[in-house]
C-alpha cells in the first residue's frame, strides 16, 4: 500500500513538472484571425528567432470575450480591429500600452500609424499598432447579378434565395448607410442610434425571405460563391479578390454608399507573458517582404511601408480595378465603438434571427 502511494506521488509530481516545463520557454501565444499567420511565415519566424508561434483563430467579439474571461492572460499578442480597443480597454482593462520604442515604426505607413495611435489612445497612451487593412463591401457574381451596386441589393427580392451576409454589426452599419443615414454620427446618441437600428432591423426582417443563409465562416462563404449557390454577399474585399483569381465573373465591388474600412492591429494583452516575443513578431510581420508575402496570399492591404514593391501585379490590379479615386474617398472608416452599442445591436440581431 505504502509503495503504491509513493509511486502515485512520484508519477503525479512528474506530470506537474512536465506540464510546467512544456509551457515555459520560447513560445508566442497569438490570438488572431484566420489567415493572419500563414504557415510559411510562422516557420520563417521560428528559424530566425527560435520562437514557436501557437496560433488561435478568432474574431473581434470572441477575442474580447476570451481576454475578458482571463482578465488579459493566456495570450502574448492579439489582433483586434482598431475600433474595438479603446472602449473595452476603458471598461475591462484587457490590454497594456504598446511601447513604440520597441516597434520599428519606420516600417509602418505613417498616416495609418497615427490614425491607430489616436483611436486606441486610453489614459494618454496608445494601445495598438496597425497590421493590415481592408474594406467590407459586396462580393458579386456578375453572371447572375450584373446590376448589383449597393448594400440595399442585399434586401432586393430580385436575388431571392441567392443572398448571404453576416448577422453582425457591420451589416447593420452598411444597411444604415444604404438608407442614407450616417450611423457613425449617431454613435454618441443612444436613443437616435436605437431608432436607426430598429429601422434597419425591420428592413432586414422584411428582406429575410430572400436570404440564403447568414454566413459565419469565411471559408463556407467562399464555397457557396464558388458553387454558384450564392450570387451576392456582403464580405471582405480580400475574399472577393481570392474568388476573382479563380473565376473572373466574381469580384469585389465598393458599394455606392461606401465600402466600410477597417484596420486590424497588434495589441498586447494585459498579462502577456512573453512580451519580447510579441514585439519580435510585430517587427517581423511588418518587414516589407514578409508583409508583402501575407498580402499576396490573403489579398488584404498591408500597413507596412515599402511592401508595395514586393506585391504581385494582380494584387495591385485588384486595388486599381475596384477602388477608383472616388471609391477611396468614399470609404467609411470605423470610428471607435463606444460601450453599450453592442447591446443595442445584439438585441436587433436576435430579433432578425428569430423572425419568421
Amino acid at each position, binding site marked *: 500500500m505504502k509503495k503504491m502511494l509513493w509511486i502515485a506521488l512520484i508519477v503525479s509530481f512528474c506530470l506537474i513538472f512536465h506540464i510546467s516545463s512544456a509551457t515555459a520557454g520560447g513560445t508566442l501565444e497569438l490570438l488572431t484571425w484566420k489567415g493572419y499567420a500563414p504557415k510559411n511565415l510562422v516557420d520563417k519566424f521560428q528559424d530566425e528567432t527560435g520562437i514557436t508561434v501557437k496560433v488561435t483563430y478568432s474574431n473581434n467579439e470572441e477575442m474580447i470575450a476570451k481576454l475578458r474571461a482571463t482578465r488579459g492572460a493566456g495570450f502574448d499578442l492579439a489582433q483586434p480591429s482598431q475600433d474595438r480597443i479603446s472602449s473595452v480597454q476603458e471598461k475591462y482593462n484587457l490590454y497594456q500600452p504598446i511601447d513604440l520604442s520597441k516597434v520599428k515604426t519606420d516600417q509602418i505607413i505613417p498616416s495609418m500609424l497615427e490614425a491607430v495611435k489616436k483611436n486606441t489612445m486610453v489614459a494618454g497612451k496608445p494601445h495598438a499598432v496597425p497590421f493590415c487593412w481592408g474594406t467590407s463591401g459586396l462580393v458579386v457574381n456578375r453572371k447572375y447579378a450584373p446590376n448589383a451596386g449597393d448594400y440595399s441589393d442585399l434586401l432586393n427580392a430580385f436575388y431571392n434565395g441567392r443572398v448571404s451576409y453576416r448577422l453582425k454589426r457591420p451589416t447593420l452599419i452598411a444597411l444604415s448607410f444604404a438608407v442614407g443615414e450616417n450611423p457613425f454620427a449617431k454613435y454618441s446618441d443612444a436613443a437616435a442610434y436605437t431608432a436607426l437600428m430598429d429601422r434597419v432591423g425591420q428592413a432586414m426582417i422584411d428582406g429575410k425571405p430572400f436570404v440564403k443563409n447568414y454566413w459565419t465562416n469565411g471559408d463556407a462563404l467562399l464555397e457557396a460563391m464558388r*458553387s454558384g449557390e450564392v450570387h451576392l454577399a456582403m464580405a471582405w474585399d480580400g475574399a472577393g479578390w481570392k474568388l476573382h483569381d479563380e473565376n473572373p465573373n466574381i469580384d469585389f465591388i465598393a458599394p455606392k454608399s461606401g465600402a466600410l474600412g477597417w484596420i486590424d492591429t497588434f495589441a498586447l494583452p494585459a498579462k502577456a507573458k512573453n512580451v519580447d516575443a510579441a514585439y519580435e513578431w510585430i517587427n517581423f510581420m511588418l518587414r516589407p517582404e514578409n508583409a508583402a508575402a501575407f498580402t499576396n496570399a490573403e489579398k488584404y492591404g498591408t500597413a507596412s511601408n515599402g511592401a508595395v514593391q514586393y506585391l504581385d501585379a494582380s494584387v495591385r490590379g485588384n486595388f486599381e480595378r475596384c477602388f477608383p479615386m472616388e471609391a477611396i474617398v468614399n470609404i467609411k472608416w470605423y470610428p471607435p465603438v463606444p460601450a453599450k452599442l*453592442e447591446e443595442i445591436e445584439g438585441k436587433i440581431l*436576435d430579433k432578425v434571427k428569430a423572425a419568421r
Partner: protein
Amino acid sequence: MKRKFRWGLFFFLAPVFLWLVLLIVLPQIDLLIMSFRAEDDLGDMVWSISNYFNFFDEPIYWLTFVRTAIYSILVTLLTFTIALPVAFYITKVVHPRFQGFLTLLLLLPFWVSELVRVYGWMILLRESGVVNHFLLKLGVLGKPVEMLYQDSTMILGLVYTSMLFMVVPLLAVLDSLDNSLIEAAYDLGANMWTILFKIIIPHATPGIVSGSIVVFMLTLGNYLTPNLMGGKNSLWFTEQIYNQFIASFNWNQGSAFGFLLLFLSSIVIWLGLKLSRQKLGKVVQ
C-alpha cells in the same frame, strides 16, 4: 496502518474533489452571483433580478425557449420511435452471433466528432450536394432544391446525433425481457400492437425514460447542430446565451439565461417523470 490508509484515500479522492469544486461548483456559484448583478442607469453594478425579468418581459427570449423545448421533445419522441425497433431487432430477432457486430455498427459514426458528422450531412444535403446531384441525374428533380437550412433538416441532424443515447439503454432493458412472455402472449392470441403496448413498453419504461432524459438534455443544450444545419431560421436557446456573452458582452444576462435553461429543463424532466410515474433514482441505475 489505519491512519496511512486514510491518507491514501484522501490522496486518491483529492483530484476528484478538486475537479468538482474548482471546475464545476465554483464557476457555477460565480455565474449565479453574476446573474443577479446588473448595471443601473449610472453604469454601476448593483444587485438586481432584472436579468431574470428581461427573459419574461421580452417575447423573443421566452418564445425561443419554448420553441427550443418543443423541438427537443419532438426530437426525443422521434428518436424513441426509431430506436425501439432497432433495439428490439438487435436483442430479440437477430442471431446472437451478430448482436455485437450490429451494436458496433451503431457505435461507428460516433467515433468521429459531432462537427465532422454535421459537415457530412451538410455536404450531402446542400444545394450543390450529393443527394441533389443524384436526384438530378435520375430525373426526379428538374432543378436542385435547397434541403439544408430548414427546421426538418435540423431535426434530422439532432435525431441522428442523439440516436445512440436512446439505443444503448433500450438494448440493456430489452435484453432482460424474457422471450417466453412474448411467446405466451402470441399463444393467447395477442396481436403485435397489443404485445408492444402491454408487454414491451411497460417492461422497457425505465430504459425509455433514462434514454429520453439524456436525449432531451443533449438536444436542448446542443449548439452546433441547430446552428449549422438550421441556418437562418434556427434560433436555439443556447445561441441566445452565446450571443449575450460574446456579441453583447452582457455576461450577467447570459448567466441568467444559463440558469433559466437549467431550471426550466429540470421542470420539463420532472413533469416527464411524474407523467410516466417513474422515480429518478430508479431510472438512472
